[in-house]
């Protein structure tokens, strides 16, 4: 399984902070497609082109590969400091 987590406005739009998702997607791009295929609110919320993602707590591109046991996070642009 993959632990998929969401933060800030994305978490609120999805109404969930984390889901367990079956392993199988080769990369984050594919995983995003699988999540969007669930319909709304997933398709709209994950369509934001400025969303960032991280694999195992490290910022990465959508081309980053995904493996069983990974923690994949999606979140809007950060606004700390």
């Amino acid at each position, binding site marked *: 399984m993959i632990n998929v*987590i969401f933060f*800030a406005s994305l978490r609120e739009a999805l109404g969930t902070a984390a889901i367990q998702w079956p392993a199988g997607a080769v990369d984050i791009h594919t995983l995003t497609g699988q999540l969007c295929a669930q319909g709304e609110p997933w398709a709209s919320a994950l369509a934001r082109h400025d969303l960032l993602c991280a694999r195992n707590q*490290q910022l990465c591109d959508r081309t980053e590969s995904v493996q069983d046991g990974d923690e994949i996070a999606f*979140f809007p642009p*950060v606004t*700390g400091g």
Partner: protein
Amino acid sequence: MTPLTRIAVQNEDFSLADEYERLQNQAECGAIVSFSGRVRDLATTPLLHMTLEHYPGMTEKALADIVQQARTRWPLGMITVIHRVGKLAVNEQIVLVLVSSAHRQAAFNACEFIMDFLKSRAPFWKKETTTEGTHWVEAKASDEAAVKRW
């Protein structure tokens, strides 16, 4: 021995004086630059408070990574990065970055570099509560541009 890097993500307030005191030990580092940021009320509708969300676990790693990048670029002594999370009132302190170095320009550059990358790469999100409701703060293009300078 005092560790060279101190990173903290916390609800509690911090004291610039205490953190500065900690950096005083290193006789060879004569230059200390600090940045501190506080909650501002610049909106047209009065700000009641701000709530800072973060990504526990990744936040500390991201900050440590930014500090490490700074150390590869400049000769630095002790570095402290403290960022608060949770509910913060107007005028409360949010973030502190302290950098010591033997060289003035290195201390300035590193402190600004750390702040620039913290703003665009560390997983924190601000939500503002005004008299008219709550909203997430939008990221600024100028912050992304600031990172591109380095």
